[in-house]
């Protein structure tokens, strides 16, 4: 088989893995981000410190270090994660921590004006959060969340360091076999650019649909 068809077939396999990782870790990190974000605003002291601690740690640690710790480091403690699930855990923790920042900001910007109004309608705190705050947070945090997801698409390439056979690891393997570096990495760059262009477009459409005028 010639280089290109061999490379492209493997690239598609790698892309499948990349997409699997993203499809699982994007929703998980959004959920994590919202839980952390709300915990940071509404939690009692203990919950506040735990959620803030998680968010600060995983925003401070480079993602690549997080991945190495989750895969190699935890093995020292006899906790064995597969490369695939270690990546998903890493992306979820990192992405969720960043998303919680946007969520927190969104909640606080809404709280300022509308909490009293909700109280005046006779809502209790939980009702206020569910009916008033949450729906608006979803919309207001969206630009930040979409930004974060675009980063996640880029940084999903890092899971190759713990041995996930995703698209970049395919490229790396082919590079060491064929040394056609420019073709190989330009092709991979192109795939990422395409993924990001699609994601950007999708978020634009969603944002326009949800725009409150």
């Amino acid at each position, binding site marked *: 088989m010639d280089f290109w068809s061999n490379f492209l077939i493997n690239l598609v396999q790698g892309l499948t893995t990349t997409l699997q990782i993203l499809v699982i870790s994007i929703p998980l990190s959004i959920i994590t981000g919202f839980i952390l974000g709300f915990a940071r605003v509404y939690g009692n002291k203990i919950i506040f410190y735990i959620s803030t601690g998680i968010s600060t740690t995983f925003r*401070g*640690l*480079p*993602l*690549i*270090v*997080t991945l*190495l*710790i989750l895969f*190699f*480091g*935890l*093995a*020292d*403690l006899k906790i064995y994660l597969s490369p695939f699930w270690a990546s998903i855990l890493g992306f979820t923790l990192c992405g969720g921590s960043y998303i919680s920042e946007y969520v927190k900001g969104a909640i606080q910007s809404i709280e300022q004006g509308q909490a009293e109004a909700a109280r005046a309608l006779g809502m209790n705190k939980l009702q206020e959060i569910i009916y008033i705050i949450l729906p608006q947070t979803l919309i207001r945090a969206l630009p930040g969340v979409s930004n974060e997801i*675009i980063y996640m698409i*880029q*940084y999903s*390439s*890092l899971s*190759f*360091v713990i041995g996930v056979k995703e698209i*970049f690891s395919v*490229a*790396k393997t082919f*590079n060491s076999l064929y*040394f056609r*570096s*420019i073709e*190989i*990495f*330009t092709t*991979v*760059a192109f795939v*990422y*650019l395409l993924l*990001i*262009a699609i994601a950007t477009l999708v978020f634009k459409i969603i944002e326009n649909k949800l725009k409150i005028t």
Partner: protein
Amino acid sequence: MNYISLIEYLPYIFEGLLWSLALVLGGLGIGFTIGLPIGTMITYSDKYTKFILNVYIWIFRSTPLIVLLFLFYWGVFPNIGLKLSPLITSIIVLGLRSGAYQSEIFRGALESIDEGQILAAYSLGMSKIQAIISITIPQALRISIPSLSNEYAILLKDSAICFTIGVLEVLTRARIVSIATGIALIPYLIAGIILMMMTYIGLKFFHTVYKKTVIPGLIEGI
């Protein structure tokens, strides 16, 4: 597993701090040198120049750093006959990428300066270039400091990715130690802590500069 020799290796990991710092400061410096002129050109030039520069920005912002690193280290530089060390390659790539991000920072800052000041500069007889250099850029630089400090933190985290082409920065050394001692968790944690401390110290530094350059009386929405 050998915890005694792990302690002996600690200074070795710490020395990586200098390499990490070189990556970050080098990248930030090159990024600034590229980003300020490009951000300025995008703000003030015609739409064709704008389009071309935006293409550069988009490509370098959207391609994963690791792909760029490998593309330049194995592809671009050897192909044009440049034998560059992993460190130099990494600094250049970090710089090119940061340049794209910094262009956006400076563009945003320049656009936030009210047009009235430029008109006032014209009314004194300044040329467009004079107005940009003496009126808008000094103000834009200051406005950009918080974003630049954010860029510093991002670069520091990205610098760890340069371990993939073997730059002897903190993370690479942690990996070497982990292989030598058979212990992974502690060296990687130490690497992580060193990088987080560097982030913290750097952010403090930027904050001090921002405070020092405050324009009395001016309230900014940052």
